[in-house]
């Protein structure tokens, strides 16, 4: 008798970065070209569950995702209770490069969504040689706040309800209920102050606009895919990035919102498979 496990395997990595030690949770599935996936603010690697369970992807790609420190099953560093968590631009960019190196990945493809879709622009600008292609989902180059994020970390408001309230509308209304609520559950499980701390990067210390001119898509191809229902990272912001970077390939995804890979995996694969096919042919 065999047990019908999913092909996804999770492990923990003791990881020292900038003088601090973290316990990082990393999961992966498949074999072939490494594809490193970055979750959104306040969430975790489970957003990529469908991609890792998609045989058409995993027969050619080794799909890997890690929970940022403080997120999912990755621990915050020792002494976390004495500090306020705030994700900064430099920390975010550098930790991705360091994780890829620690995992000994050979020029992985990197794909990030939302804050991840922003940070990959920094990777494209300054670490092009470390990656074979870059995919930004819901990418924007500059911060733009539209509500007071302090409510996400307020003792009078349950932080998981606040996170739910803040992001529940970002998905397309036609996305399946099961996947929408799975996506929201991940948000509800974030630690207090973590989503808020991630939005420090999204709304304050995360401007990459001035680096766009350093992106050379002949060295590292850049793909931008954005769901049309996302009023946080609007398609127009992605189109601006696409216009500023010669050679970037931009797709606006109809019927999807801010969490394309998680809110409607079946529809998302119709957009991402052709991109992964194209990248596989680059080799």
């Amino acid at each position, binding site marked *: 008798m065999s047990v019908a496990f999913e092909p996804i395997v999770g492990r923990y990595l003791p990881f020292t970065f900038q003088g601090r030690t973290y316990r990082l949770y990393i999961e992966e599935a498949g074999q072939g070209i490494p594809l490193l996936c970055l979750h959104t603010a306040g969430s975790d690697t489970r957003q990529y569950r469908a991609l890792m369970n998609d045989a058409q992807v995993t027969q050619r790609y080794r799909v890997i995702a890690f929970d940022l420190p403080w997120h999912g099953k990755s621990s915050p560093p020792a002494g976390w209770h004495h500090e306020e968590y705030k994700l900064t631009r430099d920390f975010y960019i550098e930790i991705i490069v360091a994780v890829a190196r620690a995992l000994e990945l050979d020029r992985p493809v990197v794909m990030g969504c939302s804050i991840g879709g922003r940070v990959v622009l920094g990777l494209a600008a300054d670490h092009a040689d470390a990656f074979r292609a870059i995919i930004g989902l819901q990418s924007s180059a500059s911060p733009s706040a539209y509500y007071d994020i302090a*409510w996400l970390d307020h003792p009078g408001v349950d932080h998981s309800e606040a996170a739910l309230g803040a992001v529940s509308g970002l998905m397309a209304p036609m996305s399946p209920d099961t996947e929408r609520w799975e996506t929201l559950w991940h948000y509800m499980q974030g630690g207090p102050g973590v989503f808020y701390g991630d939005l420090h990067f999204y709304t304050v210390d995360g401007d990459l606009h001035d680096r766009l001119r350093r992106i050379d898509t002949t060295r590292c191809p850049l793909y931008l895919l954005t769901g049309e229902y996302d009023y946080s990272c609007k398609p127009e912001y992605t189109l601006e990035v696409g216009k500023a970077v010669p050679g970037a390939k931009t797709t606006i995804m109809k019927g999807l919102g801010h969490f394309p890979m998680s809110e409607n995996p079946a529809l998302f694969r119709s957009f991402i498979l052709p991109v992964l096919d194209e990248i596989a042919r680059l080799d």
Partner: protein
Amino acid sequence: MLERLPDLVNGNAALVRRGRHFSTTFLVEVGSHGWLVQVREGRIDSVERGPFRMASWSFALRGTAEGWAKFWQPVPPPYYQDIFGLLRQGELRFEGDLLPLWANMLYVKGVMGALRGNGGAS
């Protein structure tokens, strides 16, 4: 329009349960028209249409008629599927004491969304 809220909300056990600790009166504006919505433990006690001379409320959702009309379409166009989308588009403002709103955001979204496809904009 908003007068239908007691029927739409009070029969929805999941939504009433979500608001079980929520009792307040909030103001909804749709263009130049206003309604006071009184909530008691997740049930809509009353909906009163303005104009008001001495309205008392904890928070207000002041939106444009055009923004709400799009929000209430059976399948809203992009950005208009949620009250945060209306905020982003400049079609809605939150005012007043926002603590009870934030503490019960999903409930309030559920109440306003209950009017979707139910002639909310008529």
